[in-house]
Structure formats: C-alpha cells, structure tokens
C-alpha cells in the first residue's frame, strides 16, 4: 500500500522542552492509525507540525510523495490534509450549514456548489436542522460539525484530535461508527489521537504509541495492548479496562 503521510525524524522543541523528539511514522492509504500516549507525550504537537500550525526544527514531512514541511496551514489543507481541534474551535455565529460550507469552499468556487456539498455532509453525519447557529449546539453536535467542516474539504488524510473527550460511552460508540464509515465512504486515511481507549482500540488498524516525544512502539491494537513497555509507561493503572475492551 502507498504511504499517504510520511513523517521523517521530526523534532520540535519549545525552549528547553523537547515536545517531539526524532519521531517518524507513516500512514498508508485508507488506513486508520491510532496515536496514543500519556498527557504531554507530544501527540497534539505532532498534529500541529503535520498541519502547518507549527514548523519542525528538524526533519521532513511528506504528503502523497510531496514535501509539505513548513507550508502554512491553508496550503496544507488545499493539498488534502484536514483536521479537527482538541479544544474545538467552532464558528459560533455561523449556522451549521454555513460552517460546513466554509470547508467545501476550498474545493469549489461557487456558494451554491458549496452548500450542495455541505448538505451532503450534513445528511451523512445525520445532523438535524442545519440552520441553527453553532453557538446553540450540544457537545456531540459541536464535534460533528467540527468533523463535518473537515470532511467538506474533501481530504485524503483526516487528523482527528481527541474527539471522544467528554462524551458518554454510547456517544463514543456512535463516533466510532462514524469514523469507520468516513474511511469507507470518503476513501480517506485517518489518524485518531485519543485518550478514550474503547474508541482508539476499536477503530484503529494500527496503533502508534508515543511517550515524551518519541515512539515507544507500534503495531496492531492487541499487540500494542499486550506490550509490557506500553503497559508500564501508560496503561499500567488502566490495564483492567484495556482487557475489558479487547474481549
């Protein structure tokens, strides 16, 4: 399978703190990769490096065979990388429809065409009453709109940053299903950065474990879950819950 995203020995430090240290990974076509690690492991920093919100000190980032290291965020989005934010950044004064149409505008010029695409995404995500303002939505809807905006840009690679944080277990199940359907319907590779284990274990084809800015291990969910190194640095106290998910 062809690699969609290649991260080659990327390093980023803030002052004396090395957030991402000589880190490499790749994401292949139509693959869902889970990126996990304890708080402060550098997961979100890595996402910001890939999407251009931060520039790496060292290393290269290649997307679809083309180097994108250091490009500004909007150009990286135009190339086909979309993301959601860990702390959601909604458009409070826009309607659901407008917010998602903004994403579509990166591919189409006319407003009519953008609204048509936005309607498709809204139907796909099952959002109701798309003329409501984004400031009036509940948590789940806010996250779905955030996801919908990213989807409307018609990405080849979708980076989802902690979408399940603060959701109820039943809602997590819904999101899990949505992520799978997105991969199948939109033919997109997905990176899921997540703390909620049931989601990331259930949805990923492959899992990359990060700690203190470096890669600890990677592999299939069950391999990673039984890796003693992972258990000791990250999952130790939550082992019981992990095993519960696996069965």
């Amino acid at each position, binding site marked *: 399978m062809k690699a969609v995203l290649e991260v080659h020995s990327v390093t980023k430090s803030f002052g004396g703190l090395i957030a991402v240290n000589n880190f490499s990974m790749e994401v292949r076509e139509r693959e869902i990769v889970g990126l996990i690690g304890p708080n402060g492991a550098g997961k979100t920093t890595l996402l910001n490096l890939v999407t251009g*919100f931060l520039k790496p000190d060292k290393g290269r980032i290649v997307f679809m065979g083309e180097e994108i290291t250091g490009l500004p965020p*909007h150009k990286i989005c135009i190339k086909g990388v979309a993301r959601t934010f860990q702390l959601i950044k909604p458009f409070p*004064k826009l309607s659901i429809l407008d917010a998602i149409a*903004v994403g579509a505008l990166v591919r189409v010029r006319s407003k009519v065409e953008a609204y048509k695409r936005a309607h498709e995404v809204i139907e796909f995500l099952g959002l109701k009453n798309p003329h409501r303002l984004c400031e009036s939505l509940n948590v789940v809807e806010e996250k779905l709109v955030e996801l919908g905006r*990213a989807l409307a840009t018609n990405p080849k690679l979708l980076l989802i940053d902690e979408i399940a944080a603060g959701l109820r277990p039943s809602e997590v199940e819904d999101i899990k299903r949505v992520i799978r359907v997105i991969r199948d319907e939109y033919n997109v590779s997905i990176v899921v950065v997540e703390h909620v284990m049931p989601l990331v274990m259930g949805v990923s084809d492959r899992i990359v474990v990060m700690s203190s800015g470096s890669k600890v291990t990677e592999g299939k969910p069950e391999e990673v879950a039984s890796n003693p190194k992972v258990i000791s640095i990250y999952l130790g106290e939550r082992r019981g819950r992990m095993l519960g998910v696996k069965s």
Partner: protein
Amino acid sequence: MFKISLSQRNAPMLLAILFLLVLPLVVRQEYWIYVMTIGLYYAILASTWNVMAGFLGRVSFAHAAFAAIGAYASALSVLHLGIPPAVGMLIGMAAGTVFSLFIGYLSLRLRGVYFTLSTLAFAEIFRIVVTVEYEYTRGSLGLETPKLIEGVLSYMPYYYVALAILLGTLFSTYVILNSAFGLKIKAVGNSEEAAEALGINSAKVKVIMFMFTSAITSLAGAFYGHLIGLVSPEVGAFDQLALVIAMAVVGGLGSLPGPVIGALLLEVISEYLREFGIFRLLIFAGLIIVTLRFFRRGIYGTLKQVIFGG
C-alpha cells in the same frame, strides 16, 4: 447571483432609503442639510469600520487617519496638478488603498491586540508628519481646498453625493458579505485558526478587506475635504476616530444598518451638545459603556430583537 425581492424583510430597508432620499426636500433648512451631510460622512466611516471590527473582529485605530490620507491626497493633487476635485477624490481613494496595502500587509499578520496597536502607531505618525511638514500641508492651520461643486451655495447636492457614496458602500458590502468570499470573511472573524485549517488564507482575507474599507474611507475623507473646503490634521485626529467607534457600537456592531443609524443619531445629538465642545466625547464614551453593558447588539440589534423576537 443574488435576488432582490420585494418581501416584507427588505421593506424597512427600502423605506429607510426613501426616507433619506426625501429628507432634504422636507427639511429645507441649509443648516440641517449640512448637519445631515456630515452625518452621512460619519455613517460611511462607521460602516467601513464596522466591516473590520464587526465581521472580522479586527479593531483599527487608523480609520480616521485613512480619511485624512484621502483628504490630503485629494487636496494636494487638486492644488498642484490643477485637476477637478472629483478626480482628486479618486486619487485620494487610490492613495488610501496603497497605504492600506502596506499597513495591512505588515500588521494584519499580528494576532489580537497587536494589529490595533500598530494602527494606532501609524495614525499618530501620520498626524505628526502632516503637522510638521508645514511647507506642503500648512500644518495645523489646514489646507484650503476648492469645493467639490463650484458656484452652488446649497448643500443639497453634497447631501446626495454623500448619500450615493453611503449607499454604494452598503450595497457593495452587502454583496461581498453574501458571496462565497463573504463566508470566508465570517469564518475568519469567528475563528482564525479554524479558518486556516479549512484552507482559508486568513491574512489575505484580512488584507483585502482592509484595503476595501480603507479605499472607501479615503474616498469619504476626500469628499469631506471638498465639502468643508479645509483639510487639517483634525480630520484624522483621535476624537474623530472615537466618535466613529461610538457611532458603530451604539448603532449596532456586526449589522449593516446599525452604524448608519448610530452615525446619524449621534451626529444630530452632537449638534445639540455643541456647547460642551470636546466634552461631548465623554458623553459618547458613556454611551459606549451603557451600550456594551446593557444592549450589546446596539440600537439596531435591540430593536430587531424587540420587533422580530430574534
């Protein structure tokens, strides 16, 4: 691309335009027509300031300075090149556009309050340069300029020129805000980072809108110079800026009619309070505080909420 239908929704707007069209014919007092013309000038400034502040969330303190740039560029070119004031106004507009490209390009990449601070610095630099360069600008004495329309004593024609510029401003703003580009503007105004993650070059959007608003502001400033026949550093002074901000905020930020209502109302009030001089600013500052504390949507937004309930 867009339909304008005679529905109930835009009936109030058409009534308002009709009202402004017949107002001088009804009032017929030169003094009040003059006051309303100045009011329209402020309405243009408040409307364009509102585009940056109300829709893009970028507060510019160089707004009055751009009016002064237009006024000086027009006055100087009319005096030295011997061209008619109407052409001078276009030169003023061009000068404002060029300046705004430079300032916008340099300062709009800055986040948050730093854009505001750099526009304040620019406005002050401009005011000092104009005051000091006595040979060209006659300093704080002011530069006498020919009137826009010669041989007419009435202010009636000026009123209609100002009204035409205002309506042109509102119409073009409306078209821009309702276009695909307008959607990008609103996205940048709501969350710059999210807009960038969705493929929008936010710096470009902001610079384009800064140029658009500054172009109209300079045109209005040039008109103002040829209306009163004198261009002085006062056109770009801070109290003028404060007045414009008060008008936009009191009228209603983030709406098109709001700043117009605020401007006309405050200009009329300001005439009645003439004897207070510079202390009028204190009263307007109080109005801003009251508006922001109790009626955040301003006069227009509050009225709309009361009448239409939403």
